[in-house]
């Protein structure tokens, strides 16, 4: 069971990281969501995997660790807030730049790069 759980987290991480490295905002957001699943599962599993041990007093004989659960519960909600924020950021990027590339502009040619450098150095 532990190996299966670990493999699942690994698969989620790999898929998430691959998508995180893409050039467009939407795959990146999807990648972040997958990564947050992986992280939530990982944090949750620090309390180890228990079957039928829900931490409700009086419901079973032995309880699973409630602390990681409380931690992950808020992490899920905050993760949602973060996803929403990133999504909105990418929408704003789309609105301002008319483009959904993560760099805010598509594979820039030499000319635009030059003007950007000029802006940076102020010459």
């Amino acid at each position, binding site marked *: *069971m*532990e*190996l*299966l759980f*670990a*493999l*699942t*987290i*690994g*698969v989620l*991480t*790999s*898929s998430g*990281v*691959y*998508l995180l*490295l*893409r*050039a467009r905002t939407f*795959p990146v957001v*999807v990648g972040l*969501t*997958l990564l947050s*699943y*992986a992280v939530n599962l*990982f944090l949750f599993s620090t*309390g180890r*995997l228990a079957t039928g*041990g829900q*931490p*409700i*007093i009086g419901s079973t004989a032995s*309880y*699973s*660790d*409630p*602390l990681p*659960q409380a931690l992950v*519960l*808020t992490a*899920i*909600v*905050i993760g949602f*807030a973060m*996803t*929403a924020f990133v*999504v909105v*950021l*990418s*929408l704003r990027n*789309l*609105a*301002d730049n008319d483009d*959904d590339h*993560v*760099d*805010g502009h*598509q594979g820039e040619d030499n000319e635009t790069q030059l003007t950007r450098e000029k802006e*940076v*150095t102020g010459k």
Partner: protein
Amino acid sequence: MSLPLVVLLPFLGAIAAPLFAQGGRTAIAIASSVPALIALAALFPHWQTLADGGVVLHSFEWLPALGISLSFRLDGLSLLFALLILIIGLLIILYARYYLKAKENVGKFYALLLCFKGSMLGIVLSSNLLLMMIFWELTSLTSFLLISFWTHKQDARRGARMALAVTGGGGLALLAGILLIGNIVGSFELDDVLAAGDLIKAHSLYPVALTLVLLGAFTKSAQFPFHFWLPHAMQAPTPVSAYLHSATMVKAGVFLMARLYPALAGTEQWFYMVSFTGMATLLLGAYTAMFKHDLKGLLAHSTVSHLGLITLLFGMGTKLAAVAAVFHVINHATFKASLFMAAGIIDHETGTRDMRRINGLWRYMPHTATLAMVAASSMAGVPLLNGFLSKEMFFAESLELNLPGLLAWLPPVIATLAGIFAVAYSARFIHDVFFNGKPVDLPIYPPHEPPRYMKIPVEILAFACIMVGIFPAVSVGPLLYAAASATLGGDVPEYHLTIAHGFNLPLLMSFVAFFGGLLMYSQRQRFFDFHARFKEIDEKAVFEAVVSRVVAKAQALTAWIENGSLQRYALWLVISVVAVSFVPLANLGIFVGENGLSPVDWPTGLAAAVLGICALATAAFHRDRFYALILLSVVGLVVALAFARFSAPDLAMTQLSVEVVTIVLLMLALYYMPSWTPIETTTPRRVRDVVIALIAGGGMTLVTLAMLTQPFTSISDFFLANSKPGGGGTNVVNVILVDFRGFDTLGEITVLAIAALGIYAMLKNTALTPPPGDGQGHAWSRDGHPLMLKLIARPMLPLALMVSVYIFLRGHNLPGGGFIAGLITSVALILQYIASGMIWTQDRVRFKYHNVIGLGLLFAVIAGAGSLAFNYPFLTSTFGYITWPVVGKFEVASAMIFDLGVYLTVIGATLLALVSIGRLSPHSAIKSKKEGA
């Protein structure tokens, strides 16, 4: 108590003094004098203790864990410096009253001057080396601000920057040195460090520590090759030059050498580093001073030279040399400060400092001329003046150095040579300025004597030169003895402070220097011609060029690393995480821990397979965004199942409802975005990304596996045991959230609220036109709000609200609670938006989501603050049981109010985010406006 007070007073004065600026220069000068007067009075009672070789210590704890304490220490050496700082400071305050013009910002000047005074007193009185370091840096900063006091002058700004760069850089080295010493000794307290001299010198890191400390001292005291900043610091107003850059601050480096003398001196390395640096500085400064036409330039280089002399004396390592060094600190401060003030008066009265134009001033200002001549003679080492005494001791000590072979000649020859130059430039100061024909083309003509009181500081210092010169034993004897005793750790050699020791070799050297110097001055034109053959290096231009080159390189490096590509940042981030975690994880060496693996049941295996396949498919088919989204939702649902499977019902419910909201959110975003991701990266790059992703995923698998199979102990037994008796609920997860760790939850819902408001703000004035179709040639469905969905959605709302109330109320005892209930309510409301449209729903929702968020946070805080009213800590909860009709006995916990806050915040934040995105379309904006009108 008095020592911290002495340090603190000038800082308080710096705050108070500018308030008197309105009252004119006299008022602020008097106000600025008060701290020094009180400080002198506070130091006076300690004199007897110090004269007997005692030490006064006042210590307070500050950061004991870091070894930093607010401890102050007064012994002979620090008293000597404190007196110099306080007394010359008072004279400077008086002098600056007349030097500054009424329209200048005198408030700023006096405030900075007092800040400097406090910092400098801090250096000399600190007992803790790290505390001293803080004051050390403060003097660099105040010096920077004072040099650039005339901010409109470019030279002043550049000089200030150079001074700060050099002394600040040295300060860094010194800090490193001090940390090393503290590490070797195990304490930063001066008493411990001074007592541990043998330990430090025997330590293998001693050469490093010594070099670093000396770097700090040499930069501060303008020693070769760091001397160049001091002449450029002369762009400061003259009172600053006299005070900081000749009498006190530049002596901080020398003070440090004296202070740490017992701990660091007495080794070969100390001898060679300090004495040769001193020798080079002594000679170079004296030589350059001769050729400066600027009055202050001459004095600045002369100061460099004299600082080299003091350094050389400390470097010699003999006890008598250390006594001579301390003595010369006093003498140099008196004659050089008065010379600077005289130079300032001349500048003030003639409008120039160029010695080629200032001549024959004797006729116009005989009084000032007399004073300046006394001080300059002292600088030259003329008998019956104080400069002569310490120079004589210096000559004597230069003969005592036991260098091998011909090198033995080096110190006395250099000493005599520097003496010749000193006499020559002093003669120039006297002859060229006050005699030598008539003034040439002065901006202010005719010059006359300055205001009466402007001369008083000069008079006092010139008088001191004479008094010390004629009656050394009476005037400074006891103070010098106390200071020397403190420097040498109580072991003072026999020495005699008399004006004549009979005819001996040092006296002969003095004669050679005196007549040689006069001869050199009379033949000065030849030397000037000789000197003019060399191209003079403008240190400021070199320094500026170096600085601008470093800045350009730094900018290029920054531009290379931060090229603006988020994609590349993400890549570097992942690679660094992998790289950084590789070594500790490789050293872990565990694959499967002691607990071993447990068997897999087939439903779980199936679910895991679904999850894995869907996750991989999401990545593989991400170009078609809609499919990717559906696959993602499957992943999320299986994750919820996983929580349920492994005994976390609360998490399963949360994940389930969040999943719904997330997918709706992403669908909504996708409405505005292209539905297809183009291929942009080349195949090798994609292969590279796959490899990185596989490494990251593999690493996570190994870490998780290693962790899951390890036995562990948890702090949760406390929560399990106290949930019911302490928190009044049986759902431990919920009790942790709203009670045990309520403060964390408060922080988390605040973050949630901020994120939602951020989303609102980011989209407030943004409009996005969605593409006309789905990007594959299909137009959107015309039926935006299908009838079936509408009809099903509307009756769902009250039902869903009822469920959420139920989930909320039972949350304390069974899976549920504010988070989950809030999400369920949100989903129910979102369903109305989807089914009936933005406008229809918004018309029926009669409140703003901002207010819901605010109300939620308010409830949470009130629930927390309520306990304060009963003298319990913030967020202490209580609970009781009440009997409701029909329902029966019911438990009410104050934590439920807190949970209500959570509930409201979650609803407000979720809906505010989604509605903000929904409003983006200009379509809906126009419509809602129309309906509003």
